[in-house]
């Protein structure tokens, strides 16, 4: 516990005047401060250079939705997707044969990554989430954990603090994704690594198309009900613009079968993934839902009567620069030419001698 106290003191000395990390009783104060900062910073005045972000998401509503989801009678009922992705991220952490003294979990929810990690890999973990109920109901893990209520875009930590930052399925609701990546890059130590997973591209395309066609046929027009997702090419660009090196981005598709459209929407709500875009339509007519359910079953249904819902997950790994990291060789330093590829056997045997 002495180490934890020292760590807390070190983190409290953050250079930014607005946000102060307060452990324990200071939780709510921290949220109130970063809430004001969020409101001030995300107003589309375009004061900060290079962001130009329009803030498509209502973060206060997202917080309420996540709090509601965490207070459900059986919070573990809708956790399957996050559990699966959390375990895959933990696999990627294990692939890096290092021990991380201090790690950060951005948008942790009820802690889906911590339960798969061991004390040998991560010595101390700080979990950050926008919803305090999720943190309060967090699952036990063997790693000593501290929970902080904060917004992913306004991390209240000093520069060069963490050896490892993980983030599982929470960055797709962030208003200013470039800024969130920059913040993560900033709080990482040199030679630190960021391992993240977020929904992308084709996620829930069946639901999106069914609702779109139903609204077109029933109401004559349609409005977006699924939030926009990042494309994989953009993700690479965003990460390198934020300063990460040695990027790895790979995609994975998880298909979950449901009895029908209503069950899909109910589980999405239970996961805290309800729509919170500012431009969402507040009302979905019952007729439209009925029509969408029929279209979903007919266009995408499986032979056994269930309907699939596709979740496309992008996993990304990015490193913060350090001199010890491998760098591409200088131009003109090659000793062998590609034209000699046909004689590779001769070259290899010459090398062995």
């Amino acid at each position, binding site marked *: 516990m002495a180490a934890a106290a020292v760590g807390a003191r070190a983190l409290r000395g953050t250079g930014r005047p607005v946000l102060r990390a307060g452990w324990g009783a200071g939780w709510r104060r921290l949220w109130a401060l970063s809430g004001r900062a969020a409101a001030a910073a995300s107003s589309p005045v375009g004061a900060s250079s290079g962001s130009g972000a329009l803030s498509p998401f209502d973060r206060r509503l997202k917080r309420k939705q996540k709090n509601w989801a965490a207070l459900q009678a059986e919070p573990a009922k809708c956790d399957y997707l996050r559990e699966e992705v959390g375990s895959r991220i933990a696999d990627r952490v294990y692939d890096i044969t290092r021990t991380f003294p201090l790690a950060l979990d951005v948008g942790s929810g009820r802690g889906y990554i911590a339960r798969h990690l061991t004390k040998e890999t991560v010595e101390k973990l700080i979990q950050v989430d926008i919803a305090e109920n999720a943190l309060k109901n967090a699952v036990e893990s063997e790693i000593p954990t501290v929970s902080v209520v904060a917004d992913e875009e306004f991390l209240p930590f000093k520069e060069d603090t963490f050896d490892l930052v993980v983030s599982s399925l929470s960055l797709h609701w962030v208003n200013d994704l470039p800024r969130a990546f920059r913040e993560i890059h900033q709080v990482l130590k040199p030679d630190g690594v960021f391992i993240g997973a977020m929904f992308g591209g084709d996620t829930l395309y069946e639901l999106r198309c069914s609702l779109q*066609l*139903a609204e*077109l*046929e*029933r*109401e*004559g027009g349609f409005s977006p009900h699924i939030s926009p997702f990042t494309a994989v090419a953009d993700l690479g660009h965003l990460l390198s613009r934020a300063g990460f090196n040695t990027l790895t981005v790979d995609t994975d598709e998880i298909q979950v079968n449901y*009895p*029908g459209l*209503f*069950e899909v929407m109910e589980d999405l709500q239970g996961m805290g993934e309800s729509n919170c875009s500012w431009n969402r339509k507040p009302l979905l007519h*019952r*007729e439209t*839902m*009925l*029509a969408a*359910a*029929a*279209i*979903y*079953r*007919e*266009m995408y249904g499986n032979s056994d009567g269930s309907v699939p819902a596709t979740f496309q997950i992008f996993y990304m790994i990015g490193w913060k620069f350090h001199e010890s990291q491998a760098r591409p060789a200088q131009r003109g330093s090659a000793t062998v030419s590609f034209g000699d590829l046909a004689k590779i056997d001769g070259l290899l045997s010459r090398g062995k001698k």
Partner: protein
Amino acid sequence: MSGRGVWLRARTRLRRFPALLAGCGEQAAAYGRCVAAAAAGTTELRRDACLEEFRALQDCFARAAKATPK
């Protein structure tokens, strides 16, 4: 629309939908086929392109809702 009561009642009503819809599989499939065909066609999907199929589906659904006690 305000107040918790409205929201809770709406959710209870909504929870019955999958069961009621299960009994109208034929009409739902017919409607789905009509929309898929209209969307795949050369012209854009217009409003009420599959009106008859939807009315059939709605009638079946309403009958199922009246038949089963709440």
